[in-house]
């Protein structure tokens, strides 16, 4: 006789309801293991997303007991102190079915923010080296490991309040680009970051950096964008 845990799972799209499953507890069990267990043993129609199961692909994010998390690296023992699990789809994105959301707005805004690299050189030129110890390289490094999981996007209240807000992940990406010395269009990129719904909409609440599973700080990146914008405008470089 194993112990079980009641798991309340959101079923349906916008209109839907919670359904409770009792799931067997195991050692070192992750929240994703729980969802998989439900689908395999109790209800094969349960929809959810995952791929890598090791915190690389960024596809498994859900709302776990009210907090956006990557479920493949979240241990049940850590988050279910009160003996219940409540699983919902990520906030701030259209609900498709059960635990799966439509990520389209998230990726569309990524494009709209303008985080696209454009080089100066052709394949015939010598490689343009980036000094690993340079300040810009370090700033880009601190922000570059984003796995596109949209956890920050779900945690941010401004995204909730203002549908035009590009959100922490897209702006974090732009900050890495602004710090890439090989990027040919730094000024344009910076200008785009300051569009309506851009970096000016962030009020440094810091929810994104507190929730990012890989420990990035979009708050810091967006602050960097505002700083770069201010100095570039005052310096006549924009």
């Amino acid at each position: 006789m194993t112990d079980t845990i009641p798991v309340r799972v959101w079923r349906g799209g916008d209109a839907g309801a919670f359904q409770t499953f009792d799931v067997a507890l195991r050692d070192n069990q992750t929240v994703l293991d729980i969802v998989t267990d439900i689908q395999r043993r109790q209800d094969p129609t349960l929809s959810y997303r995952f791929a890598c199961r090791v915190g690389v692909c960024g596809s498994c994010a859900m709302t776990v007991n009210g907090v956006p998390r990557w479920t493949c690296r979240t241990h049940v023992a850590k988050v279910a102190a009160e003996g219940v699990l409540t699983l919902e789809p990520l906030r701030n994105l259209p609900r498709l079915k059960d635990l799966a959301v439509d990520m389209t707005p998230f990726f569309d805004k990524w494009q709209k923010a303008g985080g696209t690299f454009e080089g100066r050189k052709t394949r015939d030129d010598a490689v343009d080296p980036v000094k690993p110890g340079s300040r810009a390289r370090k700033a880009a490094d601190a922000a570059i490991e984003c796995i596109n999981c949209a956890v920050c996007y779900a945690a941010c209240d401004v995204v909730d309040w203002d549908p035009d807000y590009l959100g922490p992940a897209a702006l974090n990406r732009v900050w890495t680009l602004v710090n890439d010395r090989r990027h040919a269009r730094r000024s344009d990129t910076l200008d785009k970051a300051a569009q309506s719904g851009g970096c000016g909409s962030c009020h440094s609440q810091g929810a994104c950096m507190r929730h990012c599973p890989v420990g990035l700080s979009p708050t810091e990146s967006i602050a960097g964008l505002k700083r770069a914008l201010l100095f570039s405008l005052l310096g006549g470089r924009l």
Partner: protein
Amino acid sequence: MIARHRRDRAYLAFLGHRISGIGLAVFLPLHFIVLAEVLSGEAALDSVLAFTAHPVVKAMEWLLLVLVCAHLIFGLRLLMLELRPWRGRGADRRGWILPGLILALAVGTLAMLGVV
């Protein structure tokens, strides 16, 4: 219940900064209109200022002083966050928030009491 992602000092600072900003923006036109009472003579301004003897108006004055100090401190915190590169732990200046709030309350209270 307060949603989990809002239970943080930085969120409190955001709310404090926003609410104080709104309060000041509402107060400002009234402040200007009262001051312009001087155009109809010193006595006219004095007759408006006489209302400040009322306890409710006194409480409002105290509140405004606290609001302006809080907005100043939280605003300076944001400027620090935004205009200086972040270095190491504490760069998010969370540590400023509670002392800042206490300082705002203290300055407002001391000024009201006519201590300084």
